[in-house]
């Protein structure tokens, strides 16, 4: 847990501090330095047009995870509200909303994402809209099933019997129990959103090619793999992997802390 927090803190600091302090221009093309392996001047090598891979990965981490976080948050908020409405209202609204979810999930979501993003010029906003519109159904299903389970629990019935309004039941008894599940779903959604950003960028529909995103970098780097430049795609790949694992560990820890019984057991 401490290692995960330290890794995230280090990456967070790098993302915040490196861009303003960097001496090098991450977009500067220097063909004399193209494809250099890791060295003192370029600790993680250079890509096929001579740009510093470490510096560009830090920039890419910033862009990709910002896009991933916003997209995952948007899909969680939309899906969470739909699931909450369906689960707590029940009856006809539930059936209508769930058929809408079925409709969205019946279409391959990458294809739908490509269709949506093609409506815009390549930009971070287009990727966020594309991922948000195609991924809210996961959160809607998770939240709805959890609300249905909670609604039938005696303690929710006791709150209703005690005169709690619909909004109070949601606020006081449903949302606190939903939060850990939504949190985990959101954390798992972030790397998935980054993957979508990668796929869309690969197709020329995601982020503009000059923008250093981890997706753009992996796609650029995979072209150099056969030439032996393993670092230009491995490094951005690790920049996705490490924060994803760290976020997963921290989310698990937070979920345990949000459950009072588990929290007491952890403190023993």
């Amino acid at each position: 847990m401490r290692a995960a927090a330290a890794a995230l803190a280090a990456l967070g600091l790098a993302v915040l501090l490196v861009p303003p302090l960097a001496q090098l221009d991450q977009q500067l093309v220097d063909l004399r330095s193209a494809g250099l392996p890791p060295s003192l001047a370029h600790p993680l090598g250079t890509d096929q047009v001579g740009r510093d891979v470490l510096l560009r990965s830090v920039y890419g981490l910033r862009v990709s995870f910002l896009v991933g976080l916003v997209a995952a948050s948007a899909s969680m908020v939309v899906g969470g509200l739909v699931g909450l409405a369906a689960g707590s209202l029940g009856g006809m609204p539930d059936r209508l909303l769930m058929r809408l979810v079925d409709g969205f999930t019946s279409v391959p979501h990458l294809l739908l994402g490509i269709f949506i993003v093609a409506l815009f010029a390549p930009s971070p906003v287009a990727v966020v809209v594309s991922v948000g519109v195609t991924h809210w159904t996961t959160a809607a299903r998770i939240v709805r099933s959890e609300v249905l389970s909670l609604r039938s629990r005696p303690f929710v019935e006791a709150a209703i019997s005690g005169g709690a309004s619909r909004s109070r039941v949601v606020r006081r008894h449903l949302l606190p129990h939903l939060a850990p599940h939504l949190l985990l779903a959101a954390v798992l959604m972030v790397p998935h959103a980054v993957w979508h950003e990668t796929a869309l960028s690969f197709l020329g529909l995601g982020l503009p090619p000059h923008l250093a995103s981890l997706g753009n970098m992996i796609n650029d780097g995979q072209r150099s793999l056969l030439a032996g430049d393993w670092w230009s795609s491995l490094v951005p790949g690790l920049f996705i992997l490490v924060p994803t694992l760290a976020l997963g560990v921290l989310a698990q820890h937070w979920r345990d802390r949000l459950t009072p019984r588990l929290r007491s057991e952890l403190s023993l």
Partner: protein
Amino acid sequence: MLEARDVTVRYGRQVVLDGVSLTVEPGRVTGLAGPSGCGKSTLARVLALMLRPAAGTVTVDGAAVRRWRQRAPRGLRTAVALLYQQPRLAVDPRLTLTEIIAEPLAAAGRADPGRVAALAAEAGLTGDLLGRRPHEVSDGQLQRACVARALSLEPRYLVCDEMTTMLDASTQAHLVAVVEAYRERSGAGVLAVSHDDALLARWAHHRVRLGGFEGLES
């Protein structure tokens, strides 16, 4: 008077209650006995407005119930308090005992720490327990909190669904005494659901038996 008339409840194709009628009179204790699985808890939930019957009517002091659960008018919902057999399932595991007892008062916009403390004391909960969460107290202590919560809005009827089944004899006696004191003070009607005939013989003014699908026998 809390009255269920010709109530039928089905879970899917299975008929659990078939044309059952029952009356709970104000100021009196009605004992409802019957074997396990005969529908006692289902009838208790119908009377507490938490389960819509497939057929039949429920009236609370003459007011016919037309909507159930969250859709039932707040005044009718809080007129009948339901005490569950398993207190551990009947409380939000995230809340402290104080918050559990205070919940109905807070929902009514009448938060009153003094009243919460008085209710807790009446139910036999000491101050050191009030800051604890459900997993940190015993079933008996938790049921005491549930009784305090049920009495917080001074309901006109109390439906005690096997309230004391899982508890030791002294806690059982104390909780029955608390409910009895409330009944005598407020004139509330009590439905005591139990398969413990000895308990009902001592507690209830009259007893009815629910047996399978045959309806009630006085």
